[in-house]
């Protein structure tokens, strides 16, 4: 697994480097920031870290069912494709800021994209 996407990105250190940048972009993004109001920031940061670990192809045990369960309350508050797209943009912008090569950004985007129907509970 030495050449897995996760290892090529730099593993957990890469996730740690990305999480503050990504979370700051999400909170500053008026299209989606309201989903993060009234949420404990430390817990939220832990969730962002889990998301980035998944997107980076890292070790995780999330099933599609978990994704649905974890986002159902947001879907009932109107979470839709536009919001998902906004997160995808913020993910790409974060990786660009960290000078990740475009082809690896595309790999991360493909992994994140594969969760869309579960996240939106379709």
């Amino acid at each position, binding site marked *: 697994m030495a050449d897995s996407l996760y290892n090529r990105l730099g593993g957990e250190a890469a996730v740690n480097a990305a999480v503050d940048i990504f*979370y*700051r972009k999400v*909170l500053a993004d008026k299209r989606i920031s309201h989903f993060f109001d009234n949420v404990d*920031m430390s817990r939220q940061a832990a969730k962002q870290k889990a998301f980035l670990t998944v997107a980076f192809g890292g070790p995780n045990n999330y099933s599609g069912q978990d994704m649905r369960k974890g986002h159902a309350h947001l879907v009932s508050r109107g979470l839709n494709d536009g919001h998902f797209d906004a997160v995808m943009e913020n993910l790409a912008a974060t990786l660009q800021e960290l000078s990740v090569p475009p082809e690896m950004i595309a790999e991360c985007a493909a992994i994140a994209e594969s969760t869309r129907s579960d996240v939106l509970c379709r």
Partner: protein
Amino acid sequence: MTRITWQGQRYELQEGETVLEALLRIGASVPYSCRSGVCQTCMMRAVAGDPGEASRHRLSEEQRARGAFLPCICHPQTDLELAPMQDELPIMATTVVSKTPLGDVLRLRLAPRKPISFRAGQFINVHAEDGVVRSYSIASVPTLDDGVLELHVRRLPDGRVSTWLHEVLREGDELCVQGPLGECCYVLGETQRPLLLIGTGSGLAPLWGILRDALHNGHTGPIYLYHGSRDAEGLYLHDELCALEAMRPEQFHYIPCVSGPNVSPDCRSGRASDAALADHSKLTGWRVYVCGHPQMVEETRRSVFLAGARIADIHTDAFTLSR
């Protein structure tokens, strides 16, 4: 229906109820204080069932391994059997050394009967009469203050414990404490880092301790302290902070802020957090401490993060007032 088992009896949890609320409803005699998952006074073990991650995520690996959880923020999805923690934090006796009123705030100094290992900015649980417990931040630095615990107790309109500490407790009395807990402390080994301290009301207590701890440990980077209050009387360490600023004018900056209508010329008008962010809009590389009113702490935490501070570099001591 989810059920809890306590001392051999089963009880049903009512809709929306926390485990602590259920225990109190059935008349169980259990200690508690903050009701918001901070002070750990009500900590218990789950001997059977799953209390859920939300009630455990702030506990140490060791506590979690022993099944510990916090009943005050626990909404279990499974039936639970509860047991008290076997080695809860020991209760330690102290002697009240001095009581100094500073407006609405009481500066309370306690000498532990046996030395207690603590750091400025941590908090301790004070056991008042009738077994009522409240958490207070530590404003003293052990090596500078002979191991004495200094607490700043603001008098609250209907505060049982604060009123008791202000009016009934006497110098020379014994007072029992538990702790210390918390990690809102000066971080050693980064003396050049700029520090931003923002506090409202008696949220100044940990900041006063952190400030003195930083200077005592040879901090050389700039330190800005914003203390906010509704009126000038609430700026209860004004003279001491001005004196400290006069001694280190290049390094330490004290910015008193008054949010009410009567602003004296030497104070800023408005909220402390607004003033701090207006002066420091870019906080990349800063370490930030925010203490005081819980809502202010949450809002400010977000603002300083958006201004560039890393999450790991933002320290808070939000105490939710007990209902």
